[in-house]
């Protein structure tokens, strides 16, 4: 495993695209959060979940992180490198595990930068949009338990999305198709849930969708009205990631490279 990790680490760090993609994840996530927060405004009726609002950028960040995950595996196939890799390390699941480990590390690093940037942006912009202490909105702070959970959970969310993408790509092998499948699964559920008016359907769709369930971790207020509790929601996403990795792993073992 150590050799496999070392080999994968060399591949990952020597690719120019890795650092570019992690940097883009952070910039796009923070940029989108800042834009959304700047476009919002305090309303006297109804309560706005400001930590969740400040973390909206994860919606776009997950797309960039999944490119990183997809390329990690699809590049092996598009260049033919996979044959060299598997000759050097014939235990295929170890290779996949090494990739997953490194991807987790990369996503954590990128995620921490992105999420911190979002919180700073929210802290700076929100008061000027009327979300002030006087209106019942304290400054965003990690000392607040629910905000800490939302922030930490968002980093974990990015990790799980990247692992899901890795699993899908291991099964599909082609980068364009894999990323299409990943984004289809992520983005389709929230849209479908919004259009469906039947309350039971609506709730179930939000409970099983990888994005809708996973992002429940960002909610800080009114947890009772959530279709799924924050950690259970992240658990659903973990199941999706686990299922994708398992499928990918089995296919990797069974198929010729």
């Amino acid at each position, binding site marked *: 495993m150590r050799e496999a990790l070392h080999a994968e680490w060399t591949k990952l760090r020597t690719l120019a695209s890795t650092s570019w993609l992690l940097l883009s994840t952070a910039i796009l996530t923070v940029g989108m959060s800042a834009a*959304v927060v700047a*476009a*919002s*405004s305090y*309303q006297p*009726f*109804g309560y*706005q979940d400001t930590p969740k*609002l400040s973390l*909206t950028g994860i*919606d*776009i960040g997950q*797309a*960039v992180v*999944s*490119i990183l995950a*997809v*390329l990690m595996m*699809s590049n092996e196939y*598009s260049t033919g490198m996979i044959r060299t890799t598997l000759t050097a390390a014939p235990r295929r699941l170890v290779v996949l595990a090494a990739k997953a480990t490194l991807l987790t590390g990369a996503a954590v690093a990128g995620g921490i930068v992105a999420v911190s940037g979002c919180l700073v942006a929210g802290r700076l912009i929100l008061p000027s949009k009327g979300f002030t202490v006087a209106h019942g909105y304290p400054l965003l702070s990690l000392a607040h338990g629910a905000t800490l959970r939302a922030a930490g959970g968002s980093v974990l969310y990015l990790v799980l999305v990247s692992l899901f993408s890795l699993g899908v790509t291991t099964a599909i092998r*082609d*980068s*364009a*198709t*894999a*990323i*299409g499948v990943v*984004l*289809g699964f992520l*983005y*389709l559920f*929230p*849209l*479908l849930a*919004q*259009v*469906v*008016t*039947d*309350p039971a*359907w*609506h709730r179930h*769709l939000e409970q099983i969708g990888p994005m809708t369930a996973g992002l429940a971790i960002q909610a800080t207020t009114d947890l009772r009205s959530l279709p799924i509790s924050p950690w259970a929601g992240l658990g659903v996403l973990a199941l999706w990631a686990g299922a994708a990795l398992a499928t990918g792993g089995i296919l990797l073992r069974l198929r010729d490279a």
Partner: protein
Amino acid sequence: MTTGIIAHRSEAVGHDGFAQLLWAEWTKFRTVRGSVIALGAAALVIALLSFVSASGDRFSFCPTGRSSCTSRHPAVPTGPGGEPVTDSFMFVHQPLVGNGVVTARVTSLSGRPVGGGPIGAPRATMQPVLVPWAKAGIMVERDTSQGAAYAAVMVTGTHGVRMQYDYTHDAPGLPGAVAMSSPRWLRLTRIGDIITGYDSTDGSHWSKIGTARFRDLPSAVQIGLFVTSPAYIPSGSNIGNPSVATASFDEVSVRGDLLTNSWTGDAIGASATFYPLLSTASSWHRLARNAFTITGSGDIAPRVGGSVFNGDMGGSILIGAIPGLIVLIVVATLFVTSEYRRGLIRITLTASPRRGRVFAAKALVVGSAAFAAGLVGTALAVVIVHHVLIANGNYLLPVSRLTEARVIVGTALLLAVAAVLALALGTAFRRGAAAVVTAIVLLVLPLILVYTLPAGESNWLMRLTPTAAFAVQGTQPSSPLVASAYTVKNGYYPLAPWAGLAVLCGYAAIALASATWLLRRRDV
């Protein structure tokens, strides 16, 4: 090798037809089994997901708890012009035979939102809010059935005094709100088939607001006082709360042939589906011989979307189009990136060295294929969704055949242009993953934001991003006489249908130009 030579020779003699180029690209496209299957899958998935989405869109309204749920929409009245209308209000009335004059003074109008269900039930009442189109005034109506022809002069929440008739006609009178210190005198005169409305601030200086001409107005009509109050829509909300309004009338007088000279109160169009079922007895009080206090809820207006009663075909078809869009984006991207991966691009560009034309042929092939798949898929989806929504008890506002055709062709064009955009991105990036993600993020992500953020705050996304093109799916009618929740989620787009598509075309044109430039400039 021979193809290369033939191409060069035919170029030399002026037969380098664009048609041959198209044929070559089409052959490349159709002989990859995956892309043909994907085209079929795109059409299928549009119809299938539209069906799933429509199946989950069922009418169910529970005004007073679980036991009161209804699964069929209430009957929708039609106005004198045959158009669907809303017609529910509190009416204190009596018959008038022949010509006459009705006069009344309104001294106050106040309102508040309420939970659904009968008033008086212990429900959270919210802060007093008078909705913009709360109405209180005098009316002459053919009869008290829903959708009957009428003419009325009224004070409103924020639109001043108006004269309205037959649901769609409206003329402004005195501006400003009504109050004890600034009351409004209202008058309607009936002479034959002509009803004229007047208003005044003092009861002696009258000004004419407008005239309504009717056909075959019967000799006996209903005249009286009415109050109604449409849904209150909180800012950023996609759905309204019912509201009630209360008005004080005095100086009520009628000149003409009154049969009985006794007033009756009726809640017209009362049904406990959305507006609270007002108890007739407690909603109007006769304070003196010519003074009344009346409370009403409902609206007298054209019917628009965005209410709890209406299903919207657009939403379901939109959901179906999204997975179809993703499939087509992948197909279009792979059409060019796989050439790079396999080195086929070098043969292609050797055979026809004019790169701009090769790219144009590719765009035309992939665009037409996506258009065809989109046309079949959306046409199926429109038929399926229509039937499923109606079977689920939803009310669908009438949509003309022309509008339906526009939704189908417009959606197919959207998919075609999106495919061309993806092709251009694929050519520019030469990397499948980056191109697919960019296209999906540009086209799908804004929609998620618009749906999940508070309504209205993110409407700029539907103007500036390629997602604006989904405006081609808008079918819901709106009216300046109704302050409904005209939000994207309810099927109202900030841009006109073709203007929205033009935004996407703009993005695609920029991407095409950049891709062509890059293709010409770069080595392959």
